[in-house]
């Protein structure tokens, strides 16, 4: 038994999914897209029901990535029933998708969600009238409180004939549909031919791919003839009739009880108005940053401290038990990568994901995106990019993961490049502050930050020009602000962390082992001599700093300690001049991302892009270092 959940965005579909399935949720990116969908199982008595949570869409015509994924899943998985999640307080909008589900021959059950809000707004909904008109079961639910979920599952698993409801289009449209449907063969399609014909007219790519050339030509000429006669596309007529029908049904079924004052939360308005929205945003971003840096730092300290206390002795014993330097290096690698996971994943990524879920679930993220879209478009980015950027100042790893909330792959890649190059993470900031800030003065540290920010803007602008694609234009619904649900937030976070662990940890482990073995074998020290002409001649740095640079790839925050070890003193002023510190800090800030970041870049964008990002960051860091050295030498 398999059921699918379909619905518009922001109708509480995911909450229903969460309540239905509980644990054991798998969430996946649909191959080749940035669209996520989730799967889980629900239990009804003895029966195990597989539940697919389709991406939220407004239509099934396959014209956006989300719609394509939803229709593909419906076609390939052939669920036994489809639950159409409908927003009770805005019935008309939600009904249109439900019509399409019925039209496509699915066995549909409607979940009339957010029923409480409809009641609060003074709307009385006549379920029986809806059931009679649509000829499907209609179950009122309040998903956040779990009301109606059992009844919904119960109704969904009962087998029943398909609804015979159908939207009547105007006579000319009906004529075009039936002429097209008449050319199709039943055995070629798993959909009713009427639905296929309609989708051909709506230019559904998934359907058009599988249609014969002559039918396509006929559809084309019928549509042209239609447009010539009516001065309007047949698509407009189809959608107008759907919305018209939805409006009629909603009108009949919904009664405004009294003139209830519909309270629109005032917070909702001030978050969008630039005058108040920008300060609120700044406050929210500052909070995220502070929680990440200080909260994350605290957790990191505690975790790493206890890990060292517990595991260091164990690993030391293991190391003492073997004579092979290789084995010792490998053990150190394992030890360090577990430590890195504890130091990055739990404190920064987990904390960030919880905050991101809250931002998403409250509906605040959408407002931020709208507010900043104009500005961000100037550097080829979507308004959402701001979240990743701010997060990146804490840790680049969750920042790169957060790019996932952005629609197109191109924008995600631009953003990931900008973050790895020009957004210093807290460890890089620590290096900048710990060297230049400490010894040369805060104004020099600020200069480095200013260089990085201009690098960000210039690079964004350049990349926007080079990677020529149409940027995605914002077009989304702004839901009312609401309280997030603890279950949903934790569920979402759990899924994301799990994904990160399975993909990134093996890479981190392998990288650490290799690097540690190189260290133990003294390969890194061998780098010092050959790199001397470059380090001294071009960057003006002592040759040994190359070890700190390479080691920084493993753990950025340890590069500073490494530097102190290399010089044998914690007073860096004895070993480096202020100019040298400036160059070192600048190079470190741009230099290739740490292993954990590389692992997520590989996971999100593939090896090739990772290699390009790495190479360009090394190159850029050295160029900036060389130029800084030249200027400072004058």
């Amino acid at each position, binding site marked *: 038994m398999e059921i699918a959940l379909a619905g518009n965005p922001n109708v509480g579909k995911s909450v229903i999914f969460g309540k239905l399935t509980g644990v054991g949720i798998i969430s996946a990116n649909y191959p080749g897209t940035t669209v996520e969908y989730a799967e889980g199982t629900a239990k009804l008595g003895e029966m195990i029901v597989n539940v697919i949570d389709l991406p939220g869409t407004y239509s099934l015509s396959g014209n956006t990535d989300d719609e394509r994924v939803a229709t593909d899943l419906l076609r390939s998985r052939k669920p036994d029933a489809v639950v159409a999640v409908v927003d009770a307080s805005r019935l008309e909008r939600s009904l249109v998708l439900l019509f399409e589900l019925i039209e496509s021959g699915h066995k549909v059950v409607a979940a009339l969600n957010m029923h409480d809000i409809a009641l609060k707004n003074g709307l009385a909904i006549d379920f029986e009238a809806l059931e009679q008109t649509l000829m499907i079961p209609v179950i009122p639910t309040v998903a956040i409180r779990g009301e109606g979920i059992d009844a919904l599952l119960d109704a969904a698993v009962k087998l029943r004939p398909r609804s015979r409801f159908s939207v009547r289009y105007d006579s000319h449209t009906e004529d075009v549909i039936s002429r097209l449907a008449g050319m199709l063969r039943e055995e070629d399609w798993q959909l009713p031919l009427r639905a296929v014909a309609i989708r051909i007219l709506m*230019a559904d790519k998934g359907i058009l791919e599988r249609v014969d050339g002559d039918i396509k030509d006929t559809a084309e000429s019928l549509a042209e003839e239609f447009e010539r006669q009516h*001065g309007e596309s047949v698509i*407009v007529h189809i959608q107008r009739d759907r919305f018209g029908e939805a409006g009629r049904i909603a009108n009949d079924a919904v009664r405004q009880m009294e003139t209830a004052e519909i309270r629109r939360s005032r917070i909702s308005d001030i978050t969008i108005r630039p005058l108040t929205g920008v300060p609120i945003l700044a406050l929210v971003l500052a909070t995220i940053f502070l929680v990440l840096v200080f909260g994350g730092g605290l957790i990191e300290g505690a975790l790493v401290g206890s890990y060292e206390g517990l595991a260091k002795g164990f690993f030391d014993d293991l190391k003492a038990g073997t004579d092979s330097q290789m084995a010792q290096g490998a053990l150190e690698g394992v030890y360090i990568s577990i430590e890195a996971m504890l130091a990055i994943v739990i404190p920064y990524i987990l904390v960030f994901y919880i905050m991101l879920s809250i931002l998403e679930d409250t509906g605040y993220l959408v407002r931020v995106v709208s507010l900043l879209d104009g500005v961000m478009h100037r550097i080829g980015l979507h308004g959402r990019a701001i979240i990743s950027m701010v997060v990146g100042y804490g840790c680049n790893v969750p920042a790169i993961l957060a790019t996932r909330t952005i629609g197109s792959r191109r924008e995600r890649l631009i953003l990931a490049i900008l973050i790895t190059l020009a957004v210093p993470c807290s460890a890089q900031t620590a290096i900048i502050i710990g060297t230049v800030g400490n010894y040369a003065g805060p104004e020099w540290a600020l200069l480095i930050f200013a260089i990085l920010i201009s690098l960000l803007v210039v690079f964004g602008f350049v990349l926007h020009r080079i990677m020529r694609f149409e940027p995605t234009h914002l077009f989304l*619904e702004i839901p009312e602000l609401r309280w997030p649900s603890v279950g949903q937030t934790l569920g979402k976070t759990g899924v994301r962390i799990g994904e990160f662990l399975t993909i990134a940890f093996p890479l981190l482990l392998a990288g650490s082992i290799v690097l540690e073995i190189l260290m133990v074998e003294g390969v890194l020290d061998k780098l010092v001599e050959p790199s001397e002409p470059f380090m001294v001649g071009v960057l003006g740095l002592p040759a040994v700093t190359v070890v700190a640079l390479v080691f920084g790839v493993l753990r950025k925050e340890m590069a500073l300690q490494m530097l102190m070890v290399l010089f044998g003193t914690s007073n860096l002023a004895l070993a480096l001049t202020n100019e040298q510190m400036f160059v070192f800090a600048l190079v470190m800030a741009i230099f290739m991302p740490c292993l954990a970041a590389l692992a997520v870049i590989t996971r999100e964008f593939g090896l090739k892009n990772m290699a390009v990002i790495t190479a360009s960051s090394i190159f850029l860091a050295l160029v900036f270092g060389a130029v800084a050295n030249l200027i400072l030498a004058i």
Partner: protein
Amino acid sequence: MASEITEQYLKIIYNLTEEEGAAKTTEIAQRLGVAPASVTQMIHKLSKQGYVRHEPYHGTRLSPKGKRVAKRIARRHRLLERFLSDIVGVGVEAGHDQACKMEHALSEEAEEVLCKMMNHPQRCPHGRPIPKCERDITCQECAAETLRLSDLDEGETATVSHLVAKNKEELCRVLAMGFIPGTRVVVEKRLPMDGPIIVNLKGTRIAIARSIGGTLCMTRAA
């Protein structure tokens, strides 16, 4: 103001003289389903009022004054036929009969909005040309005058008249969001730096990039 019966006569004469020079009394009688004698009487009256000129053995022609009235009525009739067939979805013949009754009641303002709403149709469902309105601009200029959603100011209310999407994908996206011709939209906020426009569409708030807002042609609410 011409009476309904006058308008009816003038329209028939207009329809007949569109193809040939003058309308024969018998033809008018046939179209109206009345006796030729009553037509003769009515023509005489119209002639006295200066709407038509009657030349014995040739037929009746519209005077410039009559032509203006007739054109206006024919325009309303054909626009209404378009409306009834395209938007209401009734058959062409039923549409014609109802348009005959509605044409006399349509106000000038409603006529203008109807024309804009249907994207300046050039022909009626029977293929006859729809006479241009009396405003002193071409249909292209009038269409250019049409507002786009992205031109509206904060707080303005307007109705979607038609869509000019670049491709079917965009058209489908905009329609699926609920921007159906005839839908009322309130502009709540225009975000700075060419940011998106926030509109209220029947209680749902939507942030829409200005470029997409440009695909929506609007008529300001009266």
